[in-house]
């Protein structure tokens, strides 16, 4: 009779052990990025194993997620903001977040005296005001990477709401 109970225990323990191994083996393994990761780069590298899809949303309820197929070296470009994400395979990973900090970067390249190339080198759309003395002589909105020629002696850039 004692042997029967011993075998009961062995069967139960082995079953539980195998299930734990299996769940661990098939659960998404998230290597990067870390939870609550913060960066100024628009491009985020995801390293995830045991998952097929990556869901990213700016809403923790994932009401309108962007869906990506996970592959080796998956890099995703996003606008500045806080994002929530989870990996989905046989099981789902826990919800993690990361933040892309907004940055305003203006580069000024001289073309000829009084004329400049202005480049939006940051990661957000910019409103740019061009001054000549104290007067505003030009106003424009630059997308990320845009370069325009301006004539003036002061160039001021700030984040655009558009």
């Amino acid at each position, binding site marked *: *009779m004692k042997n029967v109970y011993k075998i009961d225990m062995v069967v139960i323990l082995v079953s539980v052990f*195998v299930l734990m191994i299996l769940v661990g083996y098939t659960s998404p393994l998230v290597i990067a990025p870390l939870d609550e990761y913060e960066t100024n780069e628009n491009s985020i590298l995801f390293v995830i194993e045991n998952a097929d899809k990556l869901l990213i949303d700016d809403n923790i309820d994932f009401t309108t997620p962007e869906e990506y197929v996970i592959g080796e070296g998956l890099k995703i470009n996003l606008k500045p903001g806080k994002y929530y994400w989870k990996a989905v395979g046989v099981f789902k990973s826990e919800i993690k977040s990361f933040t892309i900090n907004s940055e305003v970067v203006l580069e000024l390249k001289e073309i000829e005296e009084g004329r400049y190339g202005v480049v939006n080198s940051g990661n957000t759309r910019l409103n740019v005001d061009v001054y000549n003395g104290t007067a505003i002589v030009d106003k424009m909105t630059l997308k990320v990477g845009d370069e325009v020629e301006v004539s003036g002696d002061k160039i001021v850039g700030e984040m655009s709401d558009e």
Partner: protein
Amino acid sequence: MNKGFMIFVIGIFMISSVYALGVSPARTTLDFSPGMENTVDFQILNSAGKDMNILIAAQGELAEYISVSSGALNVAATEKTKQVSYEFSLPENLGPGLHTADIIILEAPNSADGATSVKATVAVVTQLHIYVPYPGKHAKAEMKIVSSKDGGVTFVFPVISVGEFDLTSVKVNVDIYDTAGTKIDSFITSPIEIPSGEKKEIVRAWGIGAPSGDYVARASLIYDEGTQSFNGTFSIGDAGLVLQDIGVNDFKLGEIVKLNMLVENRWNEKIEGAYVYANILNDRGDIVSKFESAAHDIPSKSKENFEAYWDTAGVKVGTYEADIAIKHGEESSKNSLQFKVDENELTIIGLGYVISDGANGGENGLVIILIIVIVVLVLINLLWFLLLRKRLKK
């Protein structure tokens, strides 16, 4: 500090080098509380990697409540970023809505930078946005209509509860109209709660299986103490012109061949000035021949025969790729077919087939492993507890 003075300050520092100046974050957004005091950190970005003299000043509506920790500072060439901060101390009361200030970071000329002819200077701004709740219950929302993979659209209503109190019931009623103004569908979403200061999205898909065409959506956001209206237009389906069939009678290689191409207009309105244009390509992708039909108007939900004449002089027996485009206005829908040309026969390959994108194909190996192992475990347990165990007990 008023704007005129700031411009004056900027004007003083006109002689400098080629600039690259940045600041992060571009904006700090906070919710108001009476007498609120806070310190906001930001980074000056020295992406050009040079010595810089920096001036910092606040301007705008909230400027009088802001003090910058260091109005002037140096950034060394070795410092890629420099951590700076400003403090603000807000009054007990501010009117509801958005209140802002700009913190201007200005690069002043460096005396070591003398050998330069650049006489412009650059400034960047980090913004402070303070939101003051509206009295009572108040919602701020917008409507977005996004095309979905399944051919329909998704209505998305991001709603922010910008009032003092929580919104206990927020729902959306959407009426869909066709371009003739006939209401064709209507739906209302389930109510949700949105705590004060929080943002939630109301999402609803629509239009799977609806006829292709343009539609108008009129939506009403209904919440505890008010409503907001939105109007938007959207399209379902592709351009709406579908090549259904190509018929050829009495094909003889080397002669001018008449092709009858049946095109269906699946759009919910008449399409004017449509025509078919074809390029016949050899195996290197070079155009060996081309033909074009006359233009026709196609009424909504009907089919039209387009005749085209293909001069096959110089075309050899073989199989050719055929790019056939149906064009109208700026729109174009392309069909990639194969023309198998014999002396007395033209066989058209590719029409009527749907090419799978293959995205959903294949079993997930892990799922199979998981299922097999679980089944084996269940079987072992059943075998032991229901059969072997009883035998051993006896």
